[in-house]
């Protein structure tokens, strides 16, 4: 067990290095750079050269190694767009907000998705199943900005406390979280329904019933744990995506989160901020996948022996 997780943990730096390299190549090959200005505002070549030197970006080669060196020392570099802001400061301001919303969204999606999915699988072809599958298809079909707009209008009118565009009470977290939760909820619901339906007709469930176990014992002790395994592996990427912020939801609700920086950094060719946000996102993704792996090993004994072999 320790072996498998240790080996996976040791791969993390290699994966992150690969991601850094690929992102770097893409970032510098995109036409345009942060020092370019339109027309008459163009910087004199001398000044551009000086700026490049200041940021350690004389050429791509020095940029790659210097930035890597700084990241290893825990410094994500300076934003080239926002003067006097370091990338670490920008991320430290946005990430907690995005992470809080994302965490809430994932919890909502997980609880309601698995619950509805399991209930639907247990009552296939009945009304509950129809309701659950309708929620699922609505969830994958409704764009995030539509559900966000509905929540924004609906609740601003009926619950005046939740007026639009404020960001100071914990209640403000709720609506963006619900808007962000809808798509993963629908996905988890489908996954759970599908895998529970498969588990419920499997041989070992028949064995459990042949022992005379009650329906509740069969479901809780035998079906659910097996039926939730596919959801678990989806959870890593979903949590990383939700917690590093969604541009759409954050824009509609005026949330000062991290999501906006993903978009703006590319549009502004803010090369260091692009690299910094990607590294933060990828680190979270890799860590969450590692956690999911760990949880998998605890739940499914078959994994451990495979790793030890």
């Amino acid at each position, binding site marked *: 067990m320790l072996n498998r997780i240790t080996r996976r943990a040791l791969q993390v730096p290699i*994966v992150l290095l*690969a*991601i850094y390299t*690929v*992102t770097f190549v*893409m*970032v510098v*090959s*995109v*036409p*345009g750079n942060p020092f370019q200005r339109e027309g008459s505002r163009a910087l004199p070549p001398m000044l551009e050269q000086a700026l490049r030197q200041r940021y350690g970006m004389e050429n791509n080669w020095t940029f790659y190694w210097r930035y890597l060196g700084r990241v290893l020392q825990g410094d994500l570099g300076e934003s080239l767009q926002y003067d006097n802001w370091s990338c670490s400061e920008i991320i430290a301001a946005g990430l907690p907000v995005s992470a809080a919303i994302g965490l809430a969204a994932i919890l909502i999606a997980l609880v309601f998705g698995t619950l509805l999915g399991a209930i639907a699988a247990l009552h*296939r*072809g009945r009304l509950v199943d129809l309701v659950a599958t309708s929620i699922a*298809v609505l969830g*994958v*079909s*409704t*764009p995030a*900005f*539509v559900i966000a*707009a509905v929540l924004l209008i609906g609740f601003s009118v009926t619950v005046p406390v939740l007026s*639009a565009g404020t960001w100071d009470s914990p209640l403000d977290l709720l609506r963006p979280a619900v808007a962000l939760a809808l798509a993963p909820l629908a996905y988890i619901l489908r996954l759970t329904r599908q895998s529970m339906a498969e588990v419920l*007709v*499997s*041989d*070992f469930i*028949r*064995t*459990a*019933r*042949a*022992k*005379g*176990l*009650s329906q509740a*014992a069969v479901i809780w*002790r*035998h079906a659910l*744990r*097996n039926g939730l395994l596919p959801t678990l592996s989806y959870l890593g*990427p979903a949590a990383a*995506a939700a917690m590093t912020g969604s*541009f*759409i939801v954050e*824009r509609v609700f005026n949330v000062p989160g991290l999501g906006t920086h*993903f*978009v703006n950094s*590319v*549009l502004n060719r803010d090369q260091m901020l692009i690299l910094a*946000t*990607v590294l933060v*996102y*990828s680190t979270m*993704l*890799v860590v969450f996948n590692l956690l999911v792996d760990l949880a998998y090993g605890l*739940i*499914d*004994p*078959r994994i451990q*022996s495979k790793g030890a072999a």
Partner: protein
Amino acid sequence: MTDIALLSNPDSADSDPGTWRRVLARPPARLAAAWIVLVLLACTLGSIWAAPRHAEVELQAARAAPSLGEPMGRDLLGRPLLPRVLLGGLISLGIGAWAAALSMLLGVAWGSVAGLSGARVDAVLMRVVDILYGLPYVLLVILLRVALDGLLRQRLGWGHDLTQVTILLLAIGGVSWLTMARVVRSQVLSLRVRPFIDAARAIGLSTFAIWRRHLLPNMAGPIAVYATLTIPQAILQESFLSFLGIGVQPPLPSWGNLAAEGVSAINSVQSFWWLLAFPCGLLTLTLLALNIVGDAFRDVVESRATSFRPTPHAPPAATPVVRRAARSPALLEITDLHVNIWSGARCVEAVRGVSLDLVAGRTLALVGESGCGKSLTALSLMRLLPENTAWISGGRIDFAGVDLVALSERRMREIRGRQIAMIFQEPMSALNPLMSIGLQVAEAVRQRNGGPRSAALRESVEWLREVGISDPARRSRQYPHELSGGMRQRAMIAMAIAARPRLLIADEPTTALDPTLQQQVLTLLSDLQKRHHMALLLITHDLGVVAQTADDVAVMYAGRVVERGPVRDVLTHPRHPYTAALLRCVPRLDGPPERLATIPGTVPAVGADISGCRFHPRCDRVSDDPRCRSDDPPEEAAGDRHRVRCWRADS
């Protein structure tokens, strides 16, 4: 020997026109498809009319509400919304469809090359996919869009609008192929080891020809299924990008940027609902329709094998049963049991009036070829027939004086495990992979005495010892995958007898084991049966096993018991031609070497329409007696407790 059928290309059944007919047979899918067609027609034809009108700014009329003249009202700049929504729809759906097509193309190409190349190229290509997966999706799209913008904007002489639409669809398609590549690669890897690919290689086809003629048609199903997911996904991506202002740039409309204009109008004091409702509503409804059709399509393609149908609640009228004359000494008495199953779209009778009895403490063997209804009969005893596909449609099952067929599910649960226990064929799949052996046996122990879990766990170790598992304390902490096949079946047996049942059903308990273990498990079963005074219903197709372990035997053929009686009588003086034929198929060590006999023909398919005796097409005694072909023979006595169903039992 390779089956010739395996060498020919099975091709895909998914491309047949029946698939779509079955999709459209579902009312929601038909409605959704009608909506898609309507929206497509309106947007394409409407755009011809809308294109010159959509940008007519009329500032005085800004934010005019919908009226008869302008059914969707006007936007912030006074432009009429209807032409903008129509043209926007064409652009949104067009980008979505083309981007999806591009992503399929890239995915199929990348996945095929990875799957058909050597291990090294494959590893590199798939590692690239893995790394791209590790990057934020939207970031990739924006990066690609920005890069393409710099590369293409100046060079394409197509005009601003067409160029930006092209760049956008290239960016979306260029990023969303990753999953497709994985799907296709795993398809190629699993298909390329199939015999028909070897056969194609053997006749000298090039790799490309094999891919085009043999692999691609067989992958059509999964690719089509994936396409139904990709198209709405690509439309969604376009709307996200346009909503953020980095997709389609105004004044060119798309449903995404129209929605963004609507959202920006929310915060005003006044409500301009039409600005939000029309683009958002159309987009959501169209995505919903695409997903509904896609779901139905996936359902039809994937449910080919396992069709799901609810069980008719009232079982078809049960055949009237003659009351039992006196209380018989039998522990179990099955009278005229009928079981129906769904086979494709038809409801067919798989067990056709089986009658059996079993005295406490004795062994009854149920024999017959596969598919004759043995297992369905056994599962009926436990009332564990697969839900929604099989059900008891008539007859009685009297167990210790109680009719199990009429019992409520709650009362039946008290019978299961504690009164009747069952051992299944395949111990690997019949044990819960996530639960230790000890806990699984302990569950059965607690069914009997309900004590604390720790006591049940201690007792389960004793049961494991009882079935001959060495080092039972350690084994009880292990999981099914850590045990050998023989040990798993022993654990299964321990689980079955731990609640001290009066009747043990063993459904081909040795089929999945290798021959040396089969003997051990059988010996164990008869030992345990004697020690614990259980009745044993042993289902098998091995007459050697019958001779060795059973007191009585019942021979089943095509859903009926054709002969039953004491083992000695039936095996030495078989009266039914099927029993006789089965006996001839058993190799003998004591006689002169001879060619092993087989029974010509095969067991008829369940529900096959056969008049007269169901065995007559394969029977060597079928003769001038016209009743063999026209009438079903009744069960007749052929000796003390020996019964047979045959018109020519005496010959």
